[in-house]
């Protein structure tokens, strides 16, 4: 009995010691695959450091920063004003770091003849004001818009950037995951939806987008996202306290090294560029 007790105590102490220096990253499910790959290759390259990564959503990560249960909050949206206020009330100063860019493609069924849409047309389609493809230059077919669920950062970003804070139409179809959106659009002729670049494949067709009322239509390609001409791009962010900067310096240096930046393109996001 006594032997078992001492072994148990030693084991818990050891595991604590092993993880006290672990850097914790928590937050957005969009940034999650990227942080996981970074953490894995970082831990492979150095043998002493340990990094733990969890998801839960951007909001969850930022409130974990507030309660001190994470070192880095990963977010696919910028910190809200009220969240910033809550943190500064506690005397926590946060630093924002752009770690990658994520571009959203507007996708339709491959047989749909429409090739380009302006932002105003997209706003009309997703808020329910434009109901038929013939109003935007296509066939006489009902438009079926697909969206993500309300818990998604992509949903929120699309609402702020493309719909300019207007609410989606009340009968919009909400799919639980990007993969489900791709599947549904590939089998519904009048469908339209938004997905991250990483999910583009042959089953759906991406349209060119214009943010200047039709003067220039930009093709959705990684090159256009990198040179900032493609308009529907959002930064993926890391938030951390300024006083933990020294502790996180090695990991952050790794992220911006050539090895780290290569991982960004592998996961499907747009790299910021080595610093």
């Amino acid at each position: 009995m006594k032997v078992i007790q001492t072994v148990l105590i030693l084991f818990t102490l050891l595991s604590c010691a092993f993880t006290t220096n672990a850097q914790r990253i928590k937050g957005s499910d969009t940034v999650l695959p990227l942080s996981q790959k970074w953490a894995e290759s970082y831990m492979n390259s150095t043998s002493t450091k340990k990094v733990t990564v969890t998801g839960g959503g951007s909001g969850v990560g930022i409130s974990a920063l507030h309660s001190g249960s994470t070192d880095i909050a990963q977010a696919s949206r910028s910190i809200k004003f009220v969240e910033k206020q809550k943190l500064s009330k506690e005397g926590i100063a946060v630093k924002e770091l752009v770690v990658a860019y994520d571009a959203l493609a507007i996708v339709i069924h491959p047989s749909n003849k429409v090739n380009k849409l302006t932002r105003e047309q997209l706003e009309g389609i997703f808020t329910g004001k434009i109901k038929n493809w013939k109003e935007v230059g296509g066939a006489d077919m009902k438009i079926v818009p697909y969206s993500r669920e309300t818990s998604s950062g992509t949903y929120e970003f699309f609402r702020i950037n493309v719909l300019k804070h207007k609410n989606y139409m009340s009968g919009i179809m909400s799919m639980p995951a990007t993969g489900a959106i791709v599947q549904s659009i590939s089998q519904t002729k009048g469908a339209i939806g938004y997905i991250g670049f990483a999910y583009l494949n042959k089953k759906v067709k991406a349209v060119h987008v214009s943010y200047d009322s039709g003067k220039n239509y930009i093709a959705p390609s990684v090159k256009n996202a990198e040179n900032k001409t493609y308009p529907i791009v959002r930064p993926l962010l890391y938030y951390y306290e300024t006083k933990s900067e020294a502790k996180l310096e090695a990991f952050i240096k790794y992220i911006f090294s050539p090895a780290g930046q290569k991982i960004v393109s592998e996961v499907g996001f747009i790299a910021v560029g080595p610093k």
Partner: protein
Amino acid sequence: MKSSKRIIEKIIEGGLKLSGATTSIIILLIIIFLFKEGSGLFQSPSVENGYALYLNSKNTVNDLDVSEIKHIFDADITNWNEVGGADQEISVFRFDDIFEIYSDEELGEHYSLLPEKIKEIINENPNIIAYLPKAFAPSNVEGVKVLPDKTISFSDFFGGKEWMPTATPSPMFGVIPLILGTLLVSFVAILIALPLGLGVAIYLSELAGETTRKFMKPTIELLAGIPSVVYGFFGLVVLVPIVQETLNLSVGETAFTGSLLLAIMALPTIITIAEDALRNTPTAMREASLALGATHWQTIYKVVIPYSASGISAAVVLGVGRAIGETMAVLMVTGNAAVMPHTLFEPIRTIPASIAAELGEAPAGGAHYQSLFLLGCILFLITMVISVTAESLSKNQPNKGV
């Protein structure tokens, strides 16, 4: 020797009583927690917590209801005279707009000059409506009036026809589309699954040969073990295109597809339990009926089925429970559109799918979170009503037998 055995028996009896009591108490606590969290919704403000709507004092409008606020901010209502004010165009101002007008330095240390700047903007524009956090809004100032805080009312929640819990500035928590969607999908699923399921159960227990039964029963029980996500995936990839093409619809994700899938999922449960109940009719009763001159078929529907009525109703209750509470499969196949269902062939949104999809990002303790708990309470009540009804119906069956 005897006394130690009795002590052990007493201990085991006590242990069983304790586990029964603990289980009941835990279930009771879960239900109490559900209702407690849900009822907190009716104390939450109808505009997002910590925010309020500000108007210029010259504006004659003093009150706006939730759907008017939504239409104003979505630019569906563009003139003040549509909501009882003067004939002026509505100018919508959101809090983030201030950062595009003034830079961070002009707003002062810790945003101290912010209320002042906002007051100027409101005073200059008599047709403005501003959505601002209370901490940074000008308060008790000439020229600016705030719309009074209203809490979410029962009629907003139970009578509201739009479910948009993340709309800004005021979320809409109308549950009628969700309740109707859930009931529609479950009802049609049971309509499809019950006759089919009972038919298969009767065939398996009475009419099938020994080899057929040996082969079919394990296969059907295998179907009951498939995880619901797999069913959802199957529904999305196979059922949805089939429904779309056969019925010539513009979109395949409809309530009908959801019902079909739920019927497929509820069938194995109904079949196995009903079949077990039917087979448990004592041979004495069957033989007595046959001896009195009844045909095989008359024996089945006049003797066997009434005898196993309670088993069949148990199968029905479990099948219905599976159909109503099914989350993942319905989430992938019905399109989750929060609208009032007018036909069977439109996308709808069910209660379990809403809870599953939205609970992740709902800030703990906020209005959205509490509304989801209240949805859980409603689901619990629906299931309880159905179970109680099914139980009472089976008890009313006069037990024709020895």
